[in-house]
């Protein structure tokens, strides 16, 4: 609207260059239809002296011409269609000033039919004013708007109880509504900053505590708005730079995007999620000149990297060590705006940051109408309702739970090219496999018995665990040689070897170590299912990680504890790691200290300090025969020669 800021009171503030020094807050006014939002806005503008010259007179003239009494809400209802229907159908934005704030006021419609417009308005707001008719009290749309504010992440809400003139400014009636709405909002984790009795039509409580509400000693609406805070700083969170595009306009290859949280500068070591590739920021680019200093949250930037990596729109750049999770499964709490209810099994398009992927709704829980007080749960999420959903993604993406990062922890759902819902990420299941809706594994052309007839063994994962230097790699190599000479098909998977390639993105943080083990287990299991004996040599210090590997490989898992005493291991120190760790130059090394968790029950335990390599290998072979992996005819044949 053509409403230009002016001072609230003559002595309020010195003139400042428009909007450059005062904090700006964006406020949405929400509430049930006809509870008086537009009237409040009209009154606020009038009382703050924010109306353009002639506007009030023009609208009074229009009203007279139409034979209608003047209403404050006409100020906003500038559209022909709105005047005809008498309801606000879309958000309108008006600017004015309070004592210490520049305010952008968003008037959102209260009619249920236009909830999508209320959401469009409220999602832009730092704070909200929720309006309730003193006569009608808390209604379904009051509750629904309260719930949506909570889902949209609006954390500051002032409640106004309007039309107090209709209840003779009764403090008692006000108290009932105040208690009800306070309980409701507090239950959503959204305690109101103030509950204010007003009459928007007459002006009581808007900018003045008039005699009619002399029993009330809280803030006026204008004071409550003045007390709202601008958006919370995102600089303090970990770096998240979702990739919008890669530009190659000249010889530079610029990765462009907006920093959603944290900050970056040239030289930073970054990881590109969900692929987990690591690189360094070579430069931060800009036009007409490139910025020299660090760039913080909110900036739209362009960076170049120190190496050629495949980066695409939708990837998320983070700092090494504080990356978001990569996932194919997300649980979210969503609101739904489409006429067609969202049901389990639905195929949707999901947008999270700049990533777009097809997805399937795997499960729906807690689907309710947030407008109802005690709403029955339904199987599908109907229009204007909310619910929790499990989503299986056809492509992996990087995401954070909303509580960790409000910007990369929210998503929208599109149906037929139009946004149909949105919500907050409750959890991401890192590493969990997608429900195989779109994945159709290709079966091997060979049957398992064809392979085992040739190799004379079944597939297995032989998992060697133990301290560094305990002899895992030596034993693994000896076993590999032995099985191969017997005509078998052994394959060695060494933890360190895989870290050079497949697991090159992983460091030694607890999460990365767990992921390293998971990938080893997945690869080994795939080989085992195809008849090979995958020999894994990995320290794998955590019982939980080894248990996870056993779950993945299931009945073909054979765990061998290489139980060489710690002092022997350190004396051997084949890779020089113990020495380095003792010297303090190798961090996160398992061996010195108590961070290796010995297995409690395994298929076999071997102490290599008291036997030869060949003895130990024989022992493993006997275990494999005993547990149905190796066919024992081999030894019989040898005996018959």
């Amino acid at each position, binding site marked *: 609207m053509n409403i230009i800021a002016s001072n609230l009171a003559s002595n309020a503030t010195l*003139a400042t*260059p428009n909007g450059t020094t005062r904090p700006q807050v964006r406020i949405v006014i929400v509430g049930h239809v006809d509870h008086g939002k537009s009237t409040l806005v009209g009154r606020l503008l009038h009382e703050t002296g924010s109306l353009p010259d002639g506007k009030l007179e023009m609208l009074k003239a229009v009203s007279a011409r139409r034979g209608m009494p003047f209403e404050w809400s006409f100020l906003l209802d500038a559209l022909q269609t709105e005047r005809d229907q008498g309801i606000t159908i879309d958000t309108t934005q008006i600017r004015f000033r309070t004592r210490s704030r520049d305010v952008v006021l968003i008037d959102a419609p209260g009619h249920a039919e236009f909830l999508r*417009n209320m959401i469009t308005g409220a999602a832009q707001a730092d704070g909200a004013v929720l309006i309730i008719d003193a006569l009608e009290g808390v209604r379904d749309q009051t509750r629904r708007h309260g719930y949506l504010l909570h889902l949209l992440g609006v954390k500051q809400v002032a409640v106004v109880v309007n039309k107090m003139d209709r209840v003779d400014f009764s403090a008692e009636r006000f108290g009932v509504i105040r208690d009800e709405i306070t309980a409701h909002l507090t239950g959503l984790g959204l305690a109101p900053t103030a509950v204010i009795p007003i009459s928007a039509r007459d002006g009581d409580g808007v900018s003045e505590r008039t005699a009619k509400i002399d029993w009330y000693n809280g803030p006026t609406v204008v004071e409550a708005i003045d007390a709202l805070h601008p958006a919370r700083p995102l600089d303090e969170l970990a770096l998240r730079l979702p990739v919008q595009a890669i530009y190659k306009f000249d010889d530079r290859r610029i990765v462009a995007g907006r920093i959603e949280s944290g900050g970056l500068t040239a030289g930073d070591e970054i990881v590109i999620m969900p692929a987990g590739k690591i690189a360094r920021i070579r430069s931060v680019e800009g036009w007409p000149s490139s910025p020299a200093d660090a760039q913080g949250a909110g900036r739209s930037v362009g960076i170049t990297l120190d190496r050629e990596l495949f980066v695409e729109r939708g990837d998320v750049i983070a700092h090494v060590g504080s990356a978001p999770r990569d996932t194919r499964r997300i649980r979210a709490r969503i609101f739904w705006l489409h006429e067609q209810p969202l049901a389990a099994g639905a195929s949707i398009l999901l947008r999270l940051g700049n990533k777009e992927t097809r997805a399937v709704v795997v499960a729906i829980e807690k689907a309710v109408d947030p407008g109802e007080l005690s709403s029955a749960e339904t199987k599908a999420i109907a229009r204007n309702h909310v619910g929790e959903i499990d989503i299986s993604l056809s492509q992996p993406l990087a995401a954070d739970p909303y509580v960790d990062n409000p910007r990369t922890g929210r998503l929208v759902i599109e149906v037929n090219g139009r*946004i149909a819902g949105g919500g907050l990420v409750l959890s991401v299941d890192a590493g969990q496999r997608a429900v195989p809706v779109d994945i159709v594994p290709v079966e091997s052309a060979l049957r398992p018995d064809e392979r085992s007839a040739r190799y004379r063994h079944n597939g297995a994962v032989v998992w060697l665990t133990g301290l560094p230097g305990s002899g895992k790699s030596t034993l693994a190599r000896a076993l590999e040689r032995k099985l191969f000479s017997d005509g078998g098909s052994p394959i060695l998977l060494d933890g360190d070897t895989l870290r050079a390639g497949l697991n090159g993105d992983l460091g030694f943080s607890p999460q990365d170590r767990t992921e390293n083990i998971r990938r080893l287990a997945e690869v080994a299991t795939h080989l085992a299912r195809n008849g090979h004996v995958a020999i894994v040599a990995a320290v794998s210090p955590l019982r939980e990680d080894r248990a996870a590997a056993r779950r993945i490989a299931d009945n073909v898992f054979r765990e061998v504890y290489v139980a060489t005493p710690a002092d022997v291991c350190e004396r051997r120190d084949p890779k020089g790691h113990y020495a380095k760790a003792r010297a303090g130059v190798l961090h996160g090394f398992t061996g010195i200290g108590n961070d290796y968790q010995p297995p409690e029950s395994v298929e076999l335990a071997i102490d290599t300090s008291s036997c030869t390599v060949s003895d130990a290998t024989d022992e493993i072979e006997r275990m494999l025969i005993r547990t149905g992996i190796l066919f024992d005819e081999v030894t019989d044949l040898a005996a018959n020669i």
Partner: protein
Amino acid sequence: MQPGMDHLDALEAQSIYIFREAFARLKKLALLWSLGKDSNVMIWLARKAFFGRVPFPALHVDTEKKFPEMYAFRDHYSKEWGLDLKVDYCPPVEAIDPTLPPAARSAARKTEGLKLALNKYGFDGLIAGIRRDEEATRAKERVFSPRGTEGGWDVRDQPPEFWDQFNASPPPGAHLRIHPILHWTEADIWAYTKRENIPIIPLYLAKDGKRYRSLGDADITFPVPSTASSIDEILVELEGTKIPERAGRALDHETEDAFERLRVAGYL
């Protein structure tokens, strides 16, 4: 707005984000260059977004009734800024809906000119420099605003738009309007123009006690009383004024719904 960024930084970053989203998600874009202060800021922002170049055409839908200073500006800066300038002409006023009031009917030529250009080039996205604070109906706009196959705007059925997730899939034959400076105010435009040293048409500065606050066709645009002869003075003037920006645009004031009717039909 985050620490370390001022108000103009925040506006700029948001506009750049919108430009990059439009470029990533639409196939055939054009920027509507009206030569006014807003669209010049838009071109500047596009160059920031794309590191010095505007990777789509700048389309001037010419009513052939602009001020001479505007044509001089266009011819000079289209070259200096390396724009892919496309100029298309509007049909004569006789071809326009005669039920519209005179100034609106004249302005509606632009809507028809735009439709002709859309058909000629097959753009699926038009970047336009409208702002929410200019006019009441524009306040209701989305950043990515779908238009029907006839270019019309259905204000009653706008898709939801939140968290900077934009609806960017126009149905076949329809197009999107993209509004990268929707969230700016008139004062923001001037403050940014000054900070970035963006060239302007001198008509905006006061001469003989009058200046143009908004530039349209020469015959239906009028100067307003003003002594502001520099951008700094314009900013001071805006601080105190209660006169709407488009007060000098005759088409807005003929009847209470003239402008809205134009917009529903596809006007900017």
